[in-house]
């Protein structure tokens, strides 16, 4: 970690959330939407983008207001700001695609909770000027989206034989229904984490 060094560059701010602090694979935060909506790549993408939008906007606003908000009401303010942007996203998604809205259901509104949990972004925003704050949040958002896509794609390919709604293997493919059911969500995320852990371990033993 780069905590001791004086200044991290904007690029590092961005990469932080994508790789080193990836909310899905490294921090394992925001599990609820991660698992619930990733039955298809499309849903995963929608959810990821929505979350990224909320993260970026709220980080920006909080960062702008950071010098005005007394610390006593900081948390309350953050919650209100995040909830606001989630409400906005809720309406925007309805306006863009009702199908996506139906598929994501109440989990759009649950982004609120998720973003509070991803709250380190907000804590970060409260201490940083808008640009790094937004970049950091954007990185988190992208990282989250990548995580969701990694899940959504696997589940859609195995569970339905499709990717983003496009059939991959033809009609004779037997879908593995379990993948789009709740246990499949747990298994796929667990599988990804295992893969990373195994890979990390291998790398470690190769180096050592």
């Amino acid at each position: 970690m780069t905590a001791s060094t004086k200044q991290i560059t904007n690029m590092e701010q961005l990469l932080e959330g994508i790789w080193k602090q990836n909310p899905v694979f490294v921090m394992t935060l925001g599990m609820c939407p991660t698992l619930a909506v990733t039955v298809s790549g499309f849903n995963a993408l929608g959810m990821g983008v929505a979350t990224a939008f909320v993260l970026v906007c709220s980080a920006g606003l909080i960062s702008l207001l950071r010098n005005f908000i007394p610390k006593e009401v900081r948390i309350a303010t953050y919650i209100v700001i995040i909830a606001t942007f989630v409400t906005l996203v809720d309406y925007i998604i309805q306006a863009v695609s009702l199908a996506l809205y139906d598929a994501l259901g109440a989990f759009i509104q649950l982004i609120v909770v998720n973003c509070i949990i991803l709250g380190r972004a907000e804590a970060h925003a409260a201490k940083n000027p808008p640009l790094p704050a937004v970049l950091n949040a954007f990185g988190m958002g992208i990282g989250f989206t990548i995580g969701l896509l990694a899940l959504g794609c696997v589940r859609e390919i195995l569970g339905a034989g499709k990717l983003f709604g496009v059939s991959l293997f033809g009609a004779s493919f037997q879908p593995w229904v379990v993948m789009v059911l709740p246990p499949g969500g747990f298994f796929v995320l667990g599988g990804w984490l295992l893969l990373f852990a195994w890979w990390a371990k291998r790398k470690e033993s190769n180096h050592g």
Partner: protein
Amino acid sequence: MSEHRTGIPPADITGSGRLVATLGLVTMICGALIVAVWQWTLPAIAANKKVVLERGVKALVPDAARIVEYDAAADGIRPAQGDPAAGAVRFYATYDGEGRLLAIAAEGAARGYADVVRVLYGYRPACECIFGIRVVQMKETPGIGDKIITDAAFVANFDGLDVSLAPDMKSLSNEVKTVKHGSKKFGWEIDAITGATITSKAVGRGINDSVQMLLPRLRPNLEELKREKGSGK
């Protein structure tokens, strides 16, 4: 974690007036944002909903030229506005190019195996029967529960499903009922799918519940609907 101690607000005690003011300010900004976006997206959302609805209803009634939304409340039917009030049933009257009533569509919902199954059904006043269904929403097990869409024999149940009202006009003369596979005897019965009984039953129950509510309110006012009001013809 990268702890930057650059922009931390002064840590002295803040007066409560300032707190309230800050919260008020933030709330106002947020409120304004929400209202603005709400206003901005409202037409798009409405248009979206309309498209989805029309797509659904048109799938049932391909000839429909116009679709009019109504609410059937306990005290009569009226054109729909906003979300339906509690206890009212939303239905859609379809008219042909000449403004003649073709059929009526409404939604029924019941809990299936995994979650709620919502179906749109088409009702034809002339035969007092349902002539088709379209699944609006379901999360049933793929490969089993979705037979309610793919199983031709099951879908055929809804071609002329008897929903005639009893003489007292208060309920159906025969409850719509899902029966075990292969034992359908009457026009008001639905032949279940083996292996997907719960889902098939949910469809039957959803339709029955909806029809039992809707038809007693709809039939007495049917004449009003026969000609499309909006067209003025």
